[in-house]
């Protein structure tokens, strides 16, 4: 900004030009600014006001204004003082939301980069075919994907359990299937047995009963792994696409030079590929983090927070406060809390990125 002011010759000329520019700029913005003021900014301000009231369904009529309650909504949200809302526990929601985001983004990035590397390998056959197929999970609307995965996790007729049965059939009679037998609720009494006894065919993926597959992660029920599988299925292609773009821009001469210098493949990966991928991956990871943190569709339509709210994330909880309980003031406060959490995550993300920036080669 300062630099621009300096360029404009004399002070007066600069001033009049600045005024003209301002008017012109505002003329361009006026229509959208006006509409946005009405449909975006005003509602946001209104929301902040609502967060400090006990706004409920009865207060929608303007002649029946809600009572001002100060910070009570926020206090109730943070201290779990919400007897009306089933299974509400803010600490659990936040912890689960963070675990959900970190585990997803980690898997998406690792899988995405690994597959991008394979796709980028020299002399790969059918490269174009794979590229088209691998974009499908990203291209499909996540709403429809989520409904389909919910259906696939059905206990009796879902594709996942039918697939397990098919695999068991395939191995029946072989040494692997020696101790074969139907193993309902296999995952609830999860123990490592040396003998392969067939995959569980009747796994109750999304049941209301709490099934904890891994003992030292008692807050993650089986349904978590179900939604994690579904969201990983639809999340990695974006990372692959971004990584592919970055990989293609790495000049091949760099690898040749490294080879001449005697660097092995592994060394080349750590010293050339990874540092040059980083600038493209960082914004993608940020975007992925925000998307996953607020991934409403996958959670709401697959597990719907079951069992006992253990797989609920903050946005699905906010939606239930609106849709099921009609506590609009409370929901407004809740959304503001979610916003601040996202802001903190973004700032941390930014900080970590900046702190490691010296690592960049490009």
């Amino acid at each position, binding site marked *: 900004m300062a630099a621009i002011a300096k360029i404009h010759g004399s002070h007066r000329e600069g001033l009049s030009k600045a005024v003209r520019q301002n008017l*012109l700029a505002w003329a361009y913005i006026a*229509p*959208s600014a006006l509409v946005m003021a009405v449909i975006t900014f005003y*509602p946001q301000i209104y929301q902040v006001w*609502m967060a400090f009231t006990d706004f409920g369904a009865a207060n929608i009529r303007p002649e029946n204004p809600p009572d001002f309650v100060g910070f009570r909504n926020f206090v109730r949200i943070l201290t779990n003082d919400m007897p009306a809302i089933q299974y509400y526990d803010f600490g659990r929601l936040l912890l689960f939301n963070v675990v959900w985001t970190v585990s997803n983004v980690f898997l998406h990035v690792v899988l995405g980069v690994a597959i991008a590397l394979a796709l980028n390998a020299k*002399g790969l056959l059918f490269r174009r075919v794979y590229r088209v197929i691998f974009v499908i999970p990203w*291209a499909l609307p996540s709403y*429809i994907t989520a409904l389909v995965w919910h259906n696939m996790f059905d206990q009796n007729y879902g594709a996942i359990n039918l697939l397990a049965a098919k695999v068991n059939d395939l191995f029946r009679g072989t040494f692997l299937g020696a101790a074969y037998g139907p193993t309902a609720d296999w995952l609830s009494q999860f123990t490592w047995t040396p003998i392969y006894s067939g995959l569980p065919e009747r796994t109750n993926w999304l049941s209301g009963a709490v099934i904890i597959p891994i003992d030292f992660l008692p807050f993650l029920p089986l349904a978590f792994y179900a939604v994690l599988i579904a969201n990983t299925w639809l999340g990695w292609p974006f990372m692959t696409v971004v990584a592919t773009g970055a990989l293609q821009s790495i000049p091949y001469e760099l690898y040749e030079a490294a080879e001449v210098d005697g660097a092995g493949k592994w060394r080349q990966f750590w010293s050339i590929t990874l540092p040059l991928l980083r600038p493209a991956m960082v914004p993608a990871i*940020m975007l992925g983090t925000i998307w996953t943190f607020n991934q409403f569709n996958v959670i709401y339509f697959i597990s719907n927070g079951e069992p006992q709210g253990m797989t609920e994330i903050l946005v699905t909880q*906010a939606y239930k406060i609106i849709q099921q309980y009609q506590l609009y003031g409370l929901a407004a406060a809740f959304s503001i809390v979610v916003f601040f959490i996202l802001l903190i995550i973004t700032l941390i993300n930014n900080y970590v990125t900046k702190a490691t920036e010296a690592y960049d080669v490009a």
Partner: protein
Amino acid sequence: MSPKLRKAILRQIGLQAFLLLVTAVVMFPVLWVVSMALDPRNISRPNELQLIPPGASLESFRVILFEPFGLTREGIYFGTLLKNSLVVSLGTAVMTVALGASAAYAFSRFRFIGRQVGMLSFIILLMMPSTGTMVPLFVLMSRIEIGGEQLRRTLFGLMIAYASSALPFAIWNLKGYFDTIPKELEEAALIDGASLTGAFFRVILPLSLPALAVTILFSFMSGWTEFMMAWVFLEDPERTTLAMALRSISGGGQHSAPWSEFAAMSILMSLPVLVLFFLFQRWIVSGLTVGGVKG
């Protein structure tokens, strides 16, 4: 066979095996839906994993397209649902791109008072969860009456709500793209006697086709598959959108249909999105990366 050739062949086999495995995982849900949709036996659920079920037919597609949905007493046809969805999604797309492009241009080209505050507020809005916009819009649009009806309950109201949440991203994304177009191009047009508005329409917009296409596609898609707000805002069953109907027949609820029909409808709703996505793929990728990085 030379050792070098053998190594190359082994490497190719390894890569192909890995990529085929990924292909299998990617295609599994897709094939599952296709096979469900083709199942003609009119059983409510499949009980075996088969790609082409015995006697496959397109019956379920016929039912979805031409038989009424039991969402109202008289039944509601696919055509009506499609019309509702198209009105909302196209309306959202047009509104978003028209308003977004002019605002983004100003943010990209002019230095004016309030510019930085404006840009900052868009970032903040991007982080606001969609439930945050939903509550105030619900209340405010319930209070506005158009033709004796609450705005909230109309498709036009829904369109406004979608545009409200789509605009911040659209402006952010378009501004990032406009930033990459050299200023000299406009200056050349101005010297040739074009007005600034003329330059915007004849130079900038044609050059920004990729970013505009992405904006249109994204806002169209958000309207096409949005469920959250539509479910809470609309009350008249005649205004049901495709997304709402799909959820209703997907099982659990009182309107749940055979799985073959759910699958057929999923395919019908996904196909246009898939086609648009592949048409615009190159632009989507560049648009997202350029718009995201530039400040």
